[in-house]
């Protein structure tokens, strides 16, 4: 298979108009490690030897061999290349992966085809795309392709890192986090988007190594020389992809992360395994772990961001926010807390008018675009907060005005937005 000549083909990306709640954005515009999904799709097709084309109706499908994938389908570069190599050029095929840690990690909620041989994604190889040009719409096209195509399970390799989860009632739980560059997913929900972003650390690093093996080797040798140790954390702190014009404070710790242009990282800040977009700011003593910070976003001083995705232009000032998504140009204040654990059973999330299991008991929430989360509230796990939500503190729960002539030395309490003596209350 290795010597098989790669066929040239068209890569049709079918724009179905699938939207992701609560952002109300096309799936194509969903950001994966700060890159729109449509761009990752085009790149994957290009690197596999194809020519990407967006189509808005099946009638635009032309003659000749093609990959047809839908706008909600993410396929990593490596997987697309392996799929194209693995297919029989003369027969329709559907991309599949055997069930493994990385597939299971992002399986809940996805509308994929699950069979005994594996999990199959809406990415198809067809020897002649024009045969499908007569389908009335993409829904019919996808159904027909699923029926016609043979199943091709692409071989893949993955590593895993064991992470200890919080123990509940003496139950110790270990979570295996997958590291692989062969990833596929249907982006149909913010939870799948969040997990797909989490998987990007492995995808991007492995692709980076593969794309620039010499550079990576130089980086590693340089890291060994400058760290003068084989301590893995010290080594990883020397291995980052740093864009131009970045300002990293000497006391900040940056490890195995991708930094865009003009990123600023403050004193005592920690950035581990993260993606920081152009112009992102990490405040003093802030902490970003396995997270994605969008362009021009701002992580304020002391904020901890863990397994979270922040879209561009947002400011996050929470004490600690885990496994959540924050939309574009959104503000999350200090005292707005997102609960991220459920003691009994899986967290349920809203999807297509019903509730579905997120497949985990550890999950935060998702805040839409242009929101202000300014009040002191606790938000239960798995909630999706719509675009434009403007949430502030209840006036009766905080001190809005301070009366004149307050007595000194007398205990006061807040009541209905003001201060009153404790004994009067």
């Amino acid at each position, binding site marked *: 298979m290795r010597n098989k000549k790669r066929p040239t083909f068209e890569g049709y990306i079918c724009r179905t108009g699938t939207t992701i709640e609560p952002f109300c954005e096309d799936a194509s515009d969903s950001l994966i490690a700060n890159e729109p999904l449509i761009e990752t799709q085009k790149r994957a097709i290009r690197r596999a030897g194809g020519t990407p084309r967006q189509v808005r109706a099946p009638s635009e499908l032309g003659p000749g061999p093609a990959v047809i994938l839908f706008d909600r389908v993410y396929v990593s570069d490596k997987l697309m290349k392996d799929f194209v190599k693995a297919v029989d050029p003369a027969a329709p095929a559907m991309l599949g992966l055997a069930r493994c840690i990385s597939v299971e990690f992002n399986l809940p909620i996805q509308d994929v085809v699950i069979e005994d041989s594996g999990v199959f994604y809406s990415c198809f190889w067809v020897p002649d795309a024009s045969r499908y040009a007569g389908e009335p719409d993409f829904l019919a096209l996808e159904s027909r392709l699923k029926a016609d195509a043979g199943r091709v399970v692409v071989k893949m390799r993955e590593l895993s890192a064991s992470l200890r989860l919080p123990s509940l009632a003496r139950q110790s739980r270990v979570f295996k986090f997958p590291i692989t560059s062969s990833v596929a997913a249907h982006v149909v929900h913010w939870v799948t988007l969040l997990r797909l972003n989490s998987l990007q650390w492995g995808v991007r690093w492995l692709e980076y190594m593969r794309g620039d093996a010499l550079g990576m080797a130089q980086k590693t040798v340089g890291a060994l020389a400058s760290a003068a140790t084989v301590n893995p954390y010290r080594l990883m702190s020397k291995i980052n992809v740093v864009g131009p014009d970045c300002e990293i404070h000497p006391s900040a710790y940056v490890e195995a992360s991708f930094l865009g242009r003009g990123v600023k990282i403050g004193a005592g800040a920690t950035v581990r395994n993260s993606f920081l977009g152009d112009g992102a700011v990490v405040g003093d003593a802030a902490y970003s772990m396995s997270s994605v910070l969008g362009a021009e976003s701002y992580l304020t001083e002391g904020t901890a961001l863990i397994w979270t995705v922040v879209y561009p*232009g947002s400011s996050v000032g929470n004490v600690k926010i885990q496994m959540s998504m924050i939309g574009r140009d959104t*503000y999350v204040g200090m005292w707005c807390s997102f609960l991220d654990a459920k003691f009994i059973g899986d967290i349920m999330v809203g999807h*297509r008018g019903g*509730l579905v299991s997120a497949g985990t008991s550890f999950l935060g929430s998702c805040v839409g675009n242009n929101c202000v989360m*300014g009040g002191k509230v606790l938000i239960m796990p798995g909630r999706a907060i719509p675009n434009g939500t403007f949430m502030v503190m209840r006036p009766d729960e905080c*001190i809005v005005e301070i009366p004149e002539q307050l007595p*000194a030395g007398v*205990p006061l309490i*807040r009541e209905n937005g003001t201060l009153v003596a404790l004994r009067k209350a």
Partner: protein
Amino acid sequence: MRTAYILKTETRIHPFGDPAGAAWVGGGTLAALQDEELSLAGIRPVHVNSLAGLPPVGPFLLLPDRLYVSARCAAVFAAMVEDSGDNAMLCMPRSPVTEYARPLSSVRDVSLPAAREAVAYDLFYVGGRLPAPAGGKAGTDGVFEALAASCARVLVRPSYSVDRLRHPNVGHRPYVTQVPVSDSIAAHVESWVHVLWLNHVLASLVVRRALAAKPGPVEVLRRAAVSANVPGCVVNSVVGGTLDAHPTARIENSIVGSGARVGARALVKDCILGDDVVVGDGTKFVNCVVGDRCNSLSDSLFVRSTFYPDATLSNLFVRECVVGRFAFLTTAVLCFADSHEGPVRVFHDGQMRSTGRHVLGACMGHETTLGTRAIFLPGLALPNGCIIVMPPGEGVHKVPATGDPAVPLVWDAGTLRPVEAVFPGYRPADAEPAEGPGGMARDCGGRSPPARGRGT
């Protein structure tokens, strides 16, 4: 040597009730700082309590106790007016230097041939006779009114650079404040917000000046000994006397007074710390002015705030706040600093007035004690001596003697009760189903489409 008379005024800093000279700026009182700045400018400071203490005829400099003027600014002004027979007033062209600490202050807008938009400060050169009080104001302020109405304007052009300070964008575009970095600063200190803002600017000025000063050989040896004791801890900073710092602490671009203790993983950056300050383990001070003997407990975060001496501090996040003497701040006090309703308003001159700023915390008076869940909106000022405790119903005061591990308990009216007893028919909450059928080309329920633009 030239003489500057610092005239005591009726200005009181709300909510402390202190005279302006007692305001805590630049690591000491304003009065002490005025003395230091004027001395550095080669001017002899003399504090007078009334007009009777002033000579009737110049030449001399005159300023109120509420005016801060940096040494360079005072020196340039004095040199420009020296030996003149006329009275003159300090002016500076409008710039971030004049605008940063300006809101709510009594500085005057003036228009000059050399600068159409300029700001006049109450630093006067009296070359001739001292005028009689005017402007309907009795006492010392009347003299400043009379001088301002009659004297010449002398323009001092400060050289400066600007730090662009990023704030969270609360429902609008990224909010950036231009913080001036300059040796020529003047400001009227008339409110707690001026104390705060002036300290933002002074922290860098005082540190730069301390670092630029050439120490004697003994001081060089002492600093070397301090640095050797905690290698790598002290960066670009000046430490007075002794320092007890954990090897993992970091002190950067700061001045630390004698006898300070800085705990493990603590961070002190762009700060002025007084004598005998305690910085707890994991506590961070960023761009703060901290008074003598302040005690910060572990794992707290203080940003761009001012603390008068002897305060006890423990909080998850205090930003843009002023805390008075002997105040006690517990961990769960909440001070909102980001306004979502336009510029923050503060009490000043007997009424609520806009500061023009969207980012501002609160002010706690002297000897205030703030207990758990005291929640403050931006701009509030708490009078001296207030004690705020948690409303009794919000805490758990009574704990059941025994508990069934299988029965979840909830807080209710000061005690813990089974969730079923408080909420009959309760079941664990899950997300509400999303509206609409969903799927491809789903209706977004009339919500506005996402903003596209920056970073997309």
